């Protein structure tokens, strides 16, 4: 598996899209740091970007990479290599290269700026971690969708839809139901609802870490009230880890049964 991972990783590292992606983050972070001297504000601005952009790019890259390397996958399938290691290796290659672009693109400007001497070091690391986790989650979802669909147009459409669902539609439905059922106690419902969405979960995690109640929103506030900052973070970390593990297990299951 690690050999496949290595090759997928180096294949992607040389793709110009990886550089564009990394360059974008770098430019964006540098300009934010240049515009504002308050590091925690920069972290919050970046949070809003990472919550939308990391999942989107991970979804696109995941689907694209799977479809583009289909023939190559067939070549690998004829080699004495285990099926699951091919797919997990490719997936991890995509997720790792995305994470590397993100971490370098955002991390380098911060380090140059001297984040590790400041009080914001912890928050910065949390931001980095969230970007990495979201890349892993959404490239796994994308891989799963691509594996399920032979037709690339359909696969692309579904993957984008999945991203749109988690990034936008889900919150809309949640808000709508909160306002419709506002006369009922909704704490537990909203708690569960936010746990079921990796993007919401990441937002809460960062805000708990930053400890900005004003930005936390209803679910965030409920989270803190019920679980406290420490336990809330632990729970959301664990659930977020589940969000990585579950799609990977699904990839494995589909890969074992698929014809090529």
């Amino acid at each position, binding site marked *: 598996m690690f*050999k496949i991972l290595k*090759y997928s990783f180096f*294949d992607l590292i*040389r*793709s110009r899209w990886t550089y564009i992606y990394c360059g974008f983050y770098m430019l964006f972070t540098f300009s934010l740091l240049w515009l504002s001297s308050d590091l925690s504000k920069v972290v919050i601005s970046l949070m809003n970007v990472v919550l939308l952009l990391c999942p989107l790019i991970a979804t696109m890259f995941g689907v694209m990479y799977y479809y*583009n*390397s289909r*023939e*190559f996958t*067939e*070549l*690998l*399938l*004829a*080699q*004495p*290599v*285990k*099926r699951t290691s091919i797919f997990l290796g490719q997936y991890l290659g995509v997720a790792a290269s995305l994470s590397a672009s993100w971490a370098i693109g955002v991390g380098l400007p911060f380090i140059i700026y001297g984040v590790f001497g400041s009080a914001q070091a912890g928050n910065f690391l949390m931001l980095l971690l969230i970007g990495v986790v979201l890349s892993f989650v959404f490239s796994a979802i994308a891989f799963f969708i691509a594996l399920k669909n032979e037709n690339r147009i359909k696969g692309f459409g579904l993957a984008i839809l999945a991203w749109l669902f988690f990034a936008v539609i889900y919150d809309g439905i949640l808000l709508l139901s909160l306002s419709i059922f506002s006369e009922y106690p909704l704490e537990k419902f909203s708690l569960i609802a936010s746990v079921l969405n990796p993007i919401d979960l990441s937002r809460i995690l960062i805000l708990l870490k930053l400890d900005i109640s004003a930005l936390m929103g209803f679910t965030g506030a409920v989270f803190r009230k019920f679980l406290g900052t420490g336990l809330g973070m632990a729970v959301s970390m664990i659930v977020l880890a589940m969000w990585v593990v579950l799609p990977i297990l699904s990839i494995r299951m589909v890969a074992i*049964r*698929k*014809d*090529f």
Partner: protein
Amino acid sequence: MISIQQLHKSFGANKVLRGIDLKFDRPGITAVLGPNGSGKTTIIKSILGMVLPDSGTISVQGENVAGKWRYRNQIAYLPQIARFPENLTVAELIRMVKDLNSSTANDEALISLFELRPFLDKRLGNLSGGTRQKVNLVLTFMYDCPIIILDEPTAGLDPISMVRLKELIHQQRMKGKTILITTHVMSLVEELAEEVVFLLEGQIHFRGSLKELKEKSEEPNVERAIAKLLEKQMAEMPA
């Protein structure tokens, strides 16, 4: 060497293989023929475990292959379409496949045979179809496997490479290997094959030596013999 029993496979409503029984237990070159969509590639992919059969068993060297993967180092396989990761160079691809196999490879001789040396540092995305097929051939033949499966080996090859390929297949045959070839190029069948398996709609319609095929159809060459077999089948089918 390879034994297939009652192999069934359908893709959705399309029944591609309907009870295939095949055994290749002696060294030799077998041509698997049949019109497009008759199930040739599906059989090959089932042997390699790329397509998972609905029912039936396949064993390679006496071992049932379901769910296994190590047996594949016994098989050299040339896929039908040679498309590779575009960002890798030829040398990197070869190195990578060597990295995945533990056996020793003789890629150098094959690279010279197909005159690929000037292309080693080129990216695969920039190669022509024929050159890619040569890379494909190098990857297939660089291991000393007892079983060789070639799916449309001549696609896109120029005449010189074609001659070299035929020589290569002949050499492998002399080493006592079991070789399966699917092709639509009948001259290749005539020159190389000792035995012919003719597939039609997922069933084995004819199996025998080239001589038997010609005798059965009363035609002097393979191309006509196959055409006649097909026509006869069409005539027998209810309209």
